[in-house]
């Protein structure tokens, strides 16, 4: 009996050790890579086409076992912070939360990449280019170092303004070019009740995470550039509403609101209602991301066409400056951040850079972004660009891919040149290629990149979230107050922002300007 027990136990031990042994024989290194889990039905990030492709084409030839470690896309920040605190983070991590990442860098949790890139990352460095790489460089006291690799963002355009083309025709009006013309259009649309009894000429909804995001075009058109310097431009980065003249854009909104031209639940944050009103054809004008009117996730235009015959959105810029430049802020050329935690050992860190470097090769990137012909697409055009990329839901499970997550170094489809990339991106909106291309042109006119900093702005860390909630208050209070109270309300809430840490942020950003610790440039510099 005893012998039998010993035998069974010995066998058990042998069995449990064997897989480990066999693994160790095949692969010298196991590389763990963070991968967003978007809970897509039928798509298992730990066992999917992209991972198999990587293992076959990169892992096996290099003796590296590649594992993808799922992190929920919607709580990636928390997951990552837990991993880092527990020392269990994957060898390649990625995050959209660059503010938190900067704190991790300051706390010494992120490995500098300069030497690794030089030795093992030539293709990767070339692919990203200096203009993208600079966004991952920070000075923590010993000069600028590359702490993370920003994804290359193919399209940096942010927003467009949308107007109802069919309403303009009905009213016999031209596309408004400035705010006064817009005002006329809004009033006319309201008078004619073009969207029915509940017509909302100017539909607007507060975006609480970044309240002035949807106002940057309008405000920039009203800024008095004679009164500001390059230094001010940097000091007031992300706070353009404090620059001279900017508040006039909001005063216009206040006028619209008091004339009943704006969504009356503005400020409550009822985006479901906004969406419902939009597709029912109640709205006459709104501001949103440059492609959102036609994006498959929202289907605003597609649904509007079903509900309203001839209903059509047209991208425009109704806030052009009357005498002065029209500027459009873009995103930076940097997408999400990819980094290697300090806990990863040297050998694995080399493997990690090799992995990303391999991914930058045209064939690998093409395969990872487009999947396998015959499954995710069936035809390509003369330039080799797939013409019928399927929605992930329509692909067989074994061939499902997620382009941006699987190839995190690139945010947007890459086909070798800007021209091809733009053309390809319009393919993503079947039936609306021209409209989308037009919107991109509108959005890209007068484009400039926002100012960012190469060192931590500590007061941003301390007060940033407070300030952004105060900005929301400033915006909704200033828009919804009585017209003659506008200046008082504006001053009151601006004062609240300045005394809640806003002034410290401005001062510190001004210091950073003096140190030269910033990226970007003043678009009005002579």
């Amino acid at each position, binding site marked *: 009996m005893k012998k039998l027990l010993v035998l069974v136990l010995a066998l058990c031990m042998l069995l449990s050790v064997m897989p480990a042994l066999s693994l160790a024989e095949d692969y010298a290194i196991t590389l763990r890579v963070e991968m967003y889990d978007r809970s897509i039905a039928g798509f298992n990030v730990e066992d999917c086409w992209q991972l198999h492709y990587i293992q076959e084409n990169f892992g096996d030839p290099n003796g590296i076992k590649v594992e993808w470690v799922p992190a929920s896309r919607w709580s990636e920040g928390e997951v990552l*912070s837990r991993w*880092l*605190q527990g020392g269990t983070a994957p060898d390649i991590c990625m995050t959209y939360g660059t*503010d*938190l990442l900067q*704190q*991790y860098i300051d*706390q*010494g*949790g992120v490995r500098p990449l300069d030497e690794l890139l030089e030795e093992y990352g030539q293709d990767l460095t070339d692919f990203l280019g200096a203009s993208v790489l600079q966004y991952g460089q920070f000075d923590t006291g010993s000069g600028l170092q590359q702490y993370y690799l920003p994804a290359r963002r193919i399209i940096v355009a942010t927003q467009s303004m949308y107007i109802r083309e069919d309403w303009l025709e009905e009213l016999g009006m031209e596309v408004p070019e400035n705010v006064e013309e817009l005002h006329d259009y809004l009033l006319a649309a309201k008078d004619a009740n073009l969207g029915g009894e*509940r017509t909302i000429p100017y539909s607007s909804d*507060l975006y*609480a995470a970044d*309240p002035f995001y949807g106002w940057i075009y309008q405000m920039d058109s009203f800024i008095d550039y004679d009164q500001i310097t390059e230094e001010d431009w940097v000091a007031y980065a992300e706070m353009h509403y404090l620059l001279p003249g900017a508040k006039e854009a909001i005063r216009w909104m206040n006028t619209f609101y008091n004339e009943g031209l704006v969504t*009356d*639940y503005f*400020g*409550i*944050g*009822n985006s*479901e*209602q906004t969406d419902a009103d939009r597709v029912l054809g109640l709205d006459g004008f709104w501001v949103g991301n440059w492609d959102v009117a036609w994006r498959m996730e929202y289907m605003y235009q597609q649904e509007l066409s079903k509900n309203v015959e001839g209903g059509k959105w047209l991208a425009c810029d109704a806030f052009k400056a009357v005498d002065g430049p029209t500027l459009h802020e873009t995103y930076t050329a940097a997408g999400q951040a990819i980094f290697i935690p*300090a806990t990863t050992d040297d050998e694995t860190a080399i493997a990690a850079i090799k992995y990303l470097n391999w991914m930058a090769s045209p064939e690998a990137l093409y395969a990872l972004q487009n999947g396998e012909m015959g499954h995710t697409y069936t035809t390509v055009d003369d330039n080799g660009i797939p013409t019928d990329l399927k929605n992930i839901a329509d692909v067989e499970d074994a061939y499902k891919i997620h382009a941006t997550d699987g190839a995190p170094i690139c945010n947007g489809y890459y086909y070798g040149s800007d021209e091809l990339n733009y053309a390809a991106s319009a393919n993503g909106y079947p039936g609306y290629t021209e409209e989308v291309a037009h919107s991109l042109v509108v959005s890209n006119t007068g484009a400039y990149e926002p100012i960012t900093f190469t060192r931590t702005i500590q007061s941003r*860390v*301390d*007060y*940033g*979230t*407070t300030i952004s*909630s105060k900005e*929301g*208050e400033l*915006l*909704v*209070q200033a828009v*919804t107050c009585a017209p003659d109270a506008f200046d008082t309300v504006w001053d009151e809430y601006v004062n*609240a922002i300045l*005394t*809640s*840490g806003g002034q410290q942020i401005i001062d510190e950003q001004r210091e950073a300007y003096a140190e030269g610790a910033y990226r970007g440039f003043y678009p009005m510099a002579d």
Partner: protein
Amino acid sequence: MKDVRRQKSRLKFLLQDWRLYSMMLIPIVWYLVFCYKPMYGLIIAFQKYNIFGGIAGSDYIGFENFRFVFEMRDFSIALVNTLWLNFLDLIFGFPMPIILAIMLNEMRLIKLKKMSQTMLYLPHFLSWVIIGGMVLEIFSPTTGLINATLLKTGLVSGNVPFLTDGHLWRFTYVLVGVWQSMGWGTILYLAAITGLDMNLFEAAQIDGANKLQQIWHVTLPGIRSTIVVLLIMNIGRMMSIGFDRPYIIGNTLVQDYCDVISTFVYRAGIINGQVARATAIGMFQSVVGLVLITIANTVSRMFDEQGIW
């Protein structure tokens, strides 16, 4: 000699009912793991916390985190709002379950009583996210149920700003909270009422007491100790406030009324990774809560009521 005997008999009890006592292990372990062990983490409230260094690898900075938080402009607003909303909840929310429990108790049709109870419990199981959606549907301007009805019938000329006027928002907040929790709150009181001696009611009836008098002289005094215990516990919670309810029902227009400590901590501590400061606020809340509950308990004992300890 006597002590030894007592000890022996205690041990005997323990041995005799070891199965029951061992069941107590589960809650004891739960408390140790989830309530006592995490207290060690309070140390980071006094540190410049580095998540990679952990508690051992972070520098001690005294009360710096507390000072920083207390000096923040929003903190005092959040503190005052927390007390305000909790106070309103106490005034309006606390008596409701008692009244409701008595009303349920007086219902004679058992089936109707059971049905009402179930329906009253239901809101308690709804997530605040869902309630938030309902609140928007009901209280929104123009499209909300109430405003749409009022406007259509011509009772009002403009929207009633249930969600956008600070004072009215407080009303909405309390109303929704009372609706959500009053049914569930009746459970303890109903149990206490069920435990009352029926002879007392009969005696009161013979003495000629009507229903209201019976409620006043028999039911209420009978559940007085339950009421007091729950009141003390509620007062102890005056400083802490749930996150979901103010966060979801609130909006930017009434920020100065709906920002409470929990939403403040979320914004100024959690989102931007300032865990040490968030911990400092949490510790402050607990300490004040402890003080409040001690005062309430002492006052209650002074009036010859039972305390909770």
